[in-house]
């Protein structure tokens, strides 16, 4: 193994991202979940910066800045405010117990690594081997979403999935074209605002943020 130092750092950051995804998957407390999300955003920013610096892809600097502002500064503070306003510092109940979730998570990681392997071998980027990790992060965030019964953790899972996708974009292709990245960021922002409004309304209607109340609509 003779990788340049920048690749090694990217690999390390990728591993951190995966670790953070797992931490989010197994986290019970909502505040820690938000902090982990911010930390994930920061790791993502750092890895994008390292990629930008080592490959000389200038648009990645913008992408990193966008990630930093959106995922480290704005969204976590919005989420914190949301939690404060809802005065809801509850523990997050998971629908499946945590050790089982972890095992499922490991299975997903193995799946993601295997799926990404042929593509990594074809990609020409210095970050190619991290594509599997990116996919694993997406899947783990998905798992985080479906194992939570409360609205806010589901939203955080959704945002974490977005993080994984951005990481996938950097690792597979050195980022998408700028116009697309801005579009994605815009969608995330708007989606966040809508969800924020929604969360308040759900609480108003159901007096709770438990998504299990939202099970009236189903096939008889």
């Amino acid at each position, binding site marked *: 193994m003779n990788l340049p130092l920048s690749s090694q750092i990217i690999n390390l950051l990728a591993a951190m991202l995966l670790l953070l995804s797992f931490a989010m998957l197994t986290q019970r407390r909502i505040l820690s979940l938000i902090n982990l999300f911010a930390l994930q955003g920061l790791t993502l920013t750092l890895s994008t910066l390292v990629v930008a610096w080592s490959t000389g*892809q200038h648009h990645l600097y913008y992408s990193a800045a966008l990630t930093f502002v959106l995922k480290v500064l704005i969204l976590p503070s919005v989420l914190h405010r949301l939690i404060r306003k809802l005065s809801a510092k509850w523990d997050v109940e998971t629908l499946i117990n945590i050790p089982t979730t972890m095992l499922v998570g490991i299975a997903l990681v193995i799946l993601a690594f295997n*799926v990404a392997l*042929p*593509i990594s071998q*074809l*990609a*020409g980027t210095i970050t190619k081997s991290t594509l599997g990790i990116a*996919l694993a992060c*997406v899947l783990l965030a*998905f798992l985080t*979403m479906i194992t939570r019964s409360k*609205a806010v953790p*589901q939203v955080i899972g*959704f945002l974490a*999935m*977005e993080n994984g*996708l951005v990481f*996938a*974009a950097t690792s*597979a*292709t*050195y980022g*998408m*074209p700028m*116009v*697309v990245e801005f*579009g*994605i960021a*815009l*969608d995330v922002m*708007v*989606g966040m605002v*809508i*969800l924020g409004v*929604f969360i308040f*309304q*759900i609480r108003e*209607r*159901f007096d709770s943020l438990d*998504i299990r*109340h*939202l*099970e*009236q*609509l189903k*096939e*008889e």
Partner: protein
Amino acid sequence: MNWQIYLVLGTPLLGSILAALWGHKSWAAGLNIAISIGTFIAAAALTAHIISEGPVVTADEQFFVDSLNVFLVALTAFVSMTTSLFSRPYMRIEHAHGKLSDNRLRLFHSMYQLFVFTMLLVLLTNNLGILWVALEAATLTTVLLVSLYRTPASLEAAWKYFILCGVGIAQALFGTILLYSASEKVLGSGGSALLWTHLETVAGSLEPTVMSLAFVFLLVGYGTKVGLVPLHNWLPDAHAEGPTPVSAVLSGLLLNVALYALLRCKVLVDGALRAPFASQLMMGFGLLSVVVAAFFLSRQKDVKRMFAYSSVEHMGLITFAFGMGGPIANFAGLLHMTVHSLTKSAIFFAVGHAAQKAGTQIMDDIRGLMKVSPTVGWGLMLGSIAILGLPPFGVFASEFLILTTAMRLQPWATPFLLVALGVAFAAVFSKVQPMVFGETNARRLPHPPALVPVFAHLAIVLTLGFYIPPYLVDWYREAAKLIG
């Protein structure tokens, strides 16, 4: 320079801003109609231009129009226009019944125009990344539309819709990233590697492994929005709990637009793989959707849910047709897209008024529409007959084409299709018949219902069943050729 495209996109965008400012005024519904008519005229101009001049690439290659998407642009503009005509009296009645405040009406008008804008953007953009962004934006606007009543059920439906489609569309983004990583090697990094016109020319040299994986993600992602089983869970809820004009455009337009996104990707994957991988996946998902949705139809109690499942069934049929591929199946698929859009939105118009008259959406409680309002009753009856594929309506023609092609190309699938269509027929007919005929319990409405759109749509569908004008045939053939 092509001014029609800007007009097509600019009119609804401007409209949404105007509606955001004045959407609560009493004349806002008229404004909504005026903008929609404007959009339709622009779309018609664009269509005429494309038909006479051929495909257009414009605005630094960011927009691209050929006969495939211009046909959908025309359809989208038309149905959104008729829906705006229908929504005027419908929303007035809802307002009079106290279900909506002025502010909600403003939100509705603004989001409706924005939704039309995002759909047109999906159709017209040449950039597969922007396509994704626009489709996600379409999801966001419809989330607000579905939750318009803010009842617990509508909030639940909107939440489910947002989360499911959000997850789905995230998969599509991953697919797009993979697609970009494949194309970047051929086209070089930067803007042009996501432009469809460029991609199409180099489809043969794209890396097959990456492309096949990308298609799996794209199919899951956009397939969620198309409503393919097993990713269809959001669809019945969103249709049942949103306002009826929204159900009409969801079924009639959004599903088509999502399928269009999938088709564009399929062309690339087919080019890269030279194997029927994408086709087989689409046929599999399509057939599954047809069969599952048909069996779910009979179990529905809510009329809008039932017709939502019927949409799943028909989208499955169209996906199956495109999966089979070839000139005839693609032709049939495009025709079915058209007639399904028109018929289903007509049905939702009729169903909307029927539900208002009966004061409920539960089918057992809607009785004898013919007595109080023959027009609504006939609209519902004829619409149901049309959607079930009875001759002489256009749905019969397209379904007949799909079935005969299936017999020729994929004989194994034909029995499933026939059984599913039979089950669907029995289910829908037996439920609609007592709603239309028999004793009534309906009430009078404070405003006259809008029935012109219903019969206009049904008339077109009926005409298409008898006679497809030659220029339309050429147009469909052209578009069918593009899909391959």
